[in-house]
């Protein structure tokens, strides 16, 4: 059991609905990799997001950092791009009408494939975020 940086996985005050062409198509929130180094995106084995207790289908999740955006499927082969140490990335959730204004409970699980550890590196966090 290694615990590390879980507290900082979900970034405070960094959640918002996404508006495209005047329509809300989803929402995003800031996230950091709970690890002491950055890793290639392909090493992110899994991302699980729950909103107010309800799990988001994988195909509706995207990852975005330093201007690059990936589906989870695309992340699997992204060996040359990295989630850097402490870098605030955004988890994008495609969802009709996004989230209602107010507080929501976000759950985030990140599973990393770390070859030298003889157990899976699964870290999770849950936080309330506010949508303005």
């Amino acid at each position, binding site marked *: 059991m290694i615990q590390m940086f879980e507290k900082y996985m979900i970034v405070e005050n960094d959640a918002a609905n996404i508006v495209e062409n005047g329509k809300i198509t989803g929402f995003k929130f800031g996230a950091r990799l709970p690890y002491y*180094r950055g890793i290639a995106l392909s090493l992110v084995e899994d991302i699980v997001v729950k909103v107010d207790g309800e799990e988001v289908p994988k195909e509706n999740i995207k990852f975005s950092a330093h201007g690059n955006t990936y589906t989870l499927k695309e992340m699997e082969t992204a060996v040359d791009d990295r989630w850097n140490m402490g870098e605030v990335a955004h988890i994008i959730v495609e969802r009709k009408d996004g989230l209602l204004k107010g507080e929501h409970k976000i759950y985030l699980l990140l599973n990393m494939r770390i*070859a030298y550890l003889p157990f899976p590196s699964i870290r999770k966090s849950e936080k309330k975020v506010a949508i303005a």
Partner: protein
Amino acid sequence: MAEKKHSIKRGVSLYSYQEEFFLQKMSLEDCIAAVAKTGATGLEILGEQSIFGFPKLTDAFVDKWFGWMDKYGVTPVCHDFMLDYTMVKGKYYSDNEALQSIIRDLKFAKRLGFKIMRAIVNITPELMEKAAPYAEEYDIKIGIEVHSPWHINSAWMARHWEVMEKTGSKYLGFVPDMGAFTKRLARVQTDRMIREGADPKIVEFVCEQHEKGVMAEYIIAQVSQMSKRPVDIAVAELSRHNTYYNPVALLQHIPRIFHVHAKFYEMLDDGTEFSIPYEKIIRILIEGGYDGYLSSEYEGNRHIQDAFEVDSVEQVRRQQEMFKRLLGEQANVEKIKAVEA
């Protein structure tokens, strides 16, 4: 302390400042400045931690890097490299792919002026053998990290030693992490587990047994009788992951020890470390004629960050002060002060 002459130097791994760096409270330059402020002269980094966009390096960054080395009077000593054997889902690196990954790090380290690289512990002895000619070509020594639960006489390390002997390469050696000498389990870690719901009585039992040197498997077996709760079993397992091995074992390997990770969890107000007997360790390193760096590696942040403010800079400062004392540097400072007065 330290009557015998020695050439041990002091360094700091920027790993130590991971809390502040992660939260962007300290920039890379701030970290380097903090190292210099302790009086340490050696700099260690994990490229994948400290360098945004690793392994890419721009000329502008490299210029800035060497500018910092001059400005702060520190020297690049060791780059810690990883080897992500499972880079692509469902696949495992071939030896050639793994070797290419090491060469990538050699190039990176060379450009930033590092002379030593730490190999992560899961790298195979066979791969180290293949890497040796490249280490020679780049003139960078590669040391396998001897990290708890392994110790320098573990079967895995004996196989690494065999390769060092077989190749006769002066470029292959060890980087022992002092966490293998955890005499007392880190209090910051057991306190955290109590906060996570571990039974304080079980924590007390495990700590006592560990300090007595009872084998971890016995401690785990006994705790399994006392509790079925995973958090309590995890406390017992700390004893397996944080070994205490007699540091005397380092003596026979001194010529192969390129660098030392001076791991620590908690520097106390009295200037000692809670878990790791540095007084004993440093005496042994001096005795053996070790002449590399003692590189501070603070790892307490992750155990206290849930409840307390982390002050890595102060923790490193305290450990460096302890090293000055144990290396006999303070006596010199006193003498200089006396002369100046």
